[in-house]
């Protein structure tokens, strides 16, 4: 078995992660429920890739994510940083101190109130009239979610949740690279975080990779960069898949300031130097994008936008845990390990490590009224600053399709999906054809767990099928109406990412390096010397030139 360890650093990364683990939890629940659809019961996915088995001191078996989550102190809401499973017996959890016989001065914070959803999780016996309750739960989550634990139904290991303490900072002030720069190294925080990671890696017989999510909109990108640097030292041959995620909120400010632009450039340059594949996720606005064709998103709430990203993340990582069988089974096809994906996307001809991630949620049916290319045209890039239409015959793609429907609400078989995708690539206009495309298919759709936000529009049916006419008047449909959806995700290594790279390189040059640059004070207070910045620019321009052969010629003439 090839294990994956997941790391989540920063506020929005944990929001995405929380949804992600909810999906896994739902899959686990459905797999063991004799009444669920057989498609969930034999999904042929190996959950051990992401989860570990353990036992508490009392000998109770546990099954928890291999996860290290890093966030600011106070971001866990009602959840204890030790998780929920490994609580000591009530006797030892006494309030008295055994190490000090003098006075005890107790300072008790107001206990945080659990919302309806969490109350229902911790309730011993389900009450009567459960249906109504579910409705209330969904309502209360839509009303207000403060932190990612508010809608998390997964159990976590005591080693998983790490809080950065002693920063004495409001979350909104922790907003640039400079401010996070020494956080990792100070007060032996880095050592503690690395110990957490080591705990999970030591257990792995044969780790296939590390999936690293970082909210790189603020100080956390510095924390993550330092963390990645120490990982590169320690686990040299373990490939790191880096997803940098941003909430639409963090990009709402109408005008990007100099320091924002420099942050983006420096953060990208630092983070990308420690990973095998870098995938930026986070559009400035989801509402205006194609992604909201069948979804009602709203950009203000991280609870809602993170759900879309988490679903795509889930789909894109499914090939890593398909059970490799002698012949492709009827449930899954084309399993892949992390390294293979990395080689596929970055190793052919161009050494481009920055990938675009696209998704179609819900994925359209294979056959239907609109036969013309629906799947390919429905894919919406979640990576910002990419060119829409681009002629790139060097592009490499890897697509994963989960639970595709043939038509209406009939599940398609694996071979049907393959044929349909082949056909749609054939039909596609030549310019969108990639050099190479790999396809992984799983028949198991994305289950929609109860705490999933009500983001579906009224054209989405129970199984995620796309209806021709609205089912109800309700604008928002959530987990009560939609039980699962087909979803497609696609990685692309293409020159469409050039604007993303060029913007960062240009800003670094213009605002940070040039004589009298507007941001030279900013970078100096962040502690970067001129040479360091020039090195960053070098590595950025190398990335650009991989994708744009003309770049070197034009830059030489300067």
């Amino acid at each position, binding site marked *: 078995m090839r294990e994956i360890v997941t790391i989540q650093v920063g506020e929005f990364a944990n929001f995405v992660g929380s949804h992600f683990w909810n999906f896994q939890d739902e899959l686990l629940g459905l797999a063991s429920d004799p009444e669920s659809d057989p498609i969930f019961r034999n999904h042929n996915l190996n959950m051990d890739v992401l989860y570990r088995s*353990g*036992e*508490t*001191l*009392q*000998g109770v078996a*546990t099954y928890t994510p291999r996860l290290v989550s890093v966030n600011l*102190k*106070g971001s*866990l*809401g*009602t*959840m*204890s*940083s*030790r998780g929920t499973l490994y609580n*000591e017996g009530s006797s*030892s*959890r006494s*309030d008295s*101190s*055994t*190490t*000090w*016989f*003098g*006075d*005890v*001065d*107790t*300072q*008790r*914070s*107001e*206990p*945080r109130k659990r919302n309806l959803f969490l109350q229902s999780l911790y309730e011993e016996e389900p009450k009567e009239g459960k249906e109504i309750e579910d409705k209330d739960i969904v309502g209360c989550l839509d009303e207000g979610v403060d932190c990612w634990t508010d809608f998390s139904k997964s159990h976590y290991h005591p080693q998983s949740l790490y809080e950065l*303490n*002693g920063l*004495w900072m*409001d979350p909104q002030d922790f907003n640039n690279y400079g401010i996070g720069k020494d956080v990792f190294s100070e*007060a032996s925080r880095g050592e503690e975080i690395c*110990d957490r990671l*080591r*705990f999970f*890696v*030591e*257990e*792995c*017989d*044969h*780790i296939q990779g590390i999936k690293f999510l970082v909210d790189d909109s603020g100080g956390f990108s510095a924390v993550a960069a330092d963390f990645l640097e120490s990982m590169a030292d*320690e686990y040299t*041959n373990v490939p790191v898949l880096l997803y940098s995620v941003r909430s639409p909120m963090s990009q709402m400010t109408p005008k990007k300031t100099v320091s924002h632009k420099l942050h983006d450039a420096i953060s990208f340059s630092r983070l990308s130097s420690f990973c095998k594949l870098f995938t930026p996720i986070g559009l400035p606005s989801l509402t205006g994008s194609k992604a909201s064709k069948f979804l009602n998103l709203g950009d203000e709430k991280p609870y809602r936008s993170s759900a879309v990203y988490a679903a795509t993340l889930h789909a894109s990582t499914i090939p890593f845990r398909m059970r490799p069988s002698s012949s492709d089974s009827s449930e899954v096809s084309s399993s892949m390990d992390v*390294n293979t994906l990395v*080689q596929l996307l970055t*190793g052919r001809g161009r050494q481009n490590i920055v990938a675009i991630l696209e998704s179609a949620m819900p994925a359209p049916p294979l056959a239907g009224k609109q036969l013309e290319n629906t799947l390919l045209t429905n894919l919406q890039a979640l990576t910002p600053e990419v060119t829409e239409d681009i002629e790139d015959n060097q592009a490499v793609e890897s697509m994963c399709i989960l639970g595709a429907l043939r038509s209406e609400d009939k599940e398609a078989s694996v071979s049907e999906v393959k044929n349909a995708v082949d056909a749609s690539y054939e039909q596609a206009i030549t310019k969108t054809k990639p050099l190479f495309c790999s396809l992984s298919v799983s028949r198991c759709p994305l289950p929609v767990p109860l705490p999933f936000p009500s983001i579906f529009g009224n054209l989405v049916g129970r199984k995620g099928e796309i209806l021709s006419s609205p089912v109800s008047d309700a604008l928002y449909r959530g987990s009560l109406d939609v039980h699962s959806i087909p979803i497609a995700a696609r990685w692309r290594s293409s020159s469409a990412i050039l604007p993303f790279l060029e913007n960062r390189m240009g800003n670094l040059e213009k605002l940070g390096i040039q004589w009298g640059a507007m941001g030279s004070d900013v970078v100096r207070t962040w502690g970067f010397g001129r040479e360091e910045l020039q090195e960053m620019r070098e590595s950025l321009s190398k990335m650009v030139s991989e994708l744009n052969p003309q770049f070197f010629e034009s830059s030489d003439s300067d």
Partner: protein
Amino acid sequence: MSVRVLNPNAEVLNKSAALHMTINAAKGLQDVLKSNLGPKGTIKMLVGGSGDIKLTKDGNTLLKEMQIQNPTAIMIARTAVAQDDISGDGTTSTVIFIGELMKQSDRCIDEGMHPRVLVDGFEIAKKATLQFLENFKTPVVMGDEVDKEMLKMVARTTLRTKLYEGLADQLTDIVVNSVLCIRKPEEAIDLFMVEIMHMRHKFDVDTRLVEGLVLDHGSRHPDMKRRAENCHILTCNVSLEYEKSEINAGFFYSNAEQREAMVTAERRSVDERVKKIIELKNKVCGDNDNFVIINQKGIDPPSLDLLAREGIIALRRAKRRNMERLVLACGGEAVNSVDDLTPESLGWAGLVYEHVLGEEKYTFVEQVKNPNSCTILIKGPNDHTIAQIKDAVRDGLRSVKNTIEDECVVLGAGAFEVAARQHLINEVKKTVQGRAQLGVEAFANALLVVPKTLAENAGLDTQDVIISLTSEHDKGNVVGLNLQDGEPIDPQLAGIFDNYSVKRQLINSGPVIASQLLLVDEVIRAGRNMRKPTA
């Protein structure tokens, strides 16, 4: 007010309001930490919003747990935490000293004094106090034979402020012995060579010193021995798991056979490495010997199988620091390639055994020869007890290290503060011209906050205590405070000693921050209300 022109939302506090804000913040922080100080202080239990419990008597830990928002308080807190980083202790003292300096200044400023004059006085007083400290300190000779009793007294003084006496005294021996274990002549002491390991098991008094190493993981093979005697220890950093090597990273297989061939070739090279280790094992091991591998890299199941079949115990993914510690504890050297394997690179331990607690495994490497690294194994019934003992052990270790490196100590129980204060008032003040005298006086009185707070926490009358201490001092004796009865004692006889470097750092940084805060004459902040009350 030109800021207002630039940014209409900016909020500006003028001179007196600014000063009051900073002084109040300093006092507020002092109030929070004051009750912690000394062996009679209270322990703080913090219960978080989610029910998490933290117990601490350590100012450093307490500050880090607090959500401080006031900018002045943050500045003081940072200084105090820096104090801990540099000298290992004295966080609480720093905070209350700065608070007291601000309080004394407040009084003077109310009487119409300019902060600048006060600051000048502080500077003079600081210099004089540092000079006085040089004369007051008690030298400790650190030759080849260290004064172990002295080290114990210093460690005990620190530990007794963090833990109850019985436990503190038990830890005193542990802490002193562990520092002496890792101490090498002519080299700075690297406290990282003392591993601090914890087990949620049994009671606090089961905490002990392990001469050797405790690792927080075990072997990952069911057939490996759980206990072995007479062990050769191989410390290495060699990958024993199959992975795609860099060479064929970009290689793509055109058919299944080719892929198989690549995989077997890779597998074979891993097996070669394992075999080389087994060869070495067969060379060095007699009938009663055992062989243990502790590897920083991974070991996959096929490799574990091969090793287990040969009766070898193998641990993977050891902490990087333990590579260093193992070599110091067991001897030999860390091996980075199987080509470097020699019998000389092996270390030795009399006993290696595994201890399992739920899903947690611990491997003890004990009975080593000439250990230069050791482990303090902390036990306790729950996490908050363990965390508290751990904090105390860290402080204890630092105090021993400081003593060895300072080659001197300072009499404790408030003796230094009382003596320094009398020196400032009786000697220094007279030499100062003009109103800066008042700054010196304020500084001198601020020093008394340490004995005062000690007395207050012990439930004694602070006025009585200070009077009896100063009068006893003026008779020419060195006096500290006996917290049992409030009477003066000789700290030398009572064995109460503080670190010289902690005191020095405290006297250095306190006035610097206080002066900076006093000279603030305008506070400008754009966009947020700063008058709201904070912790």
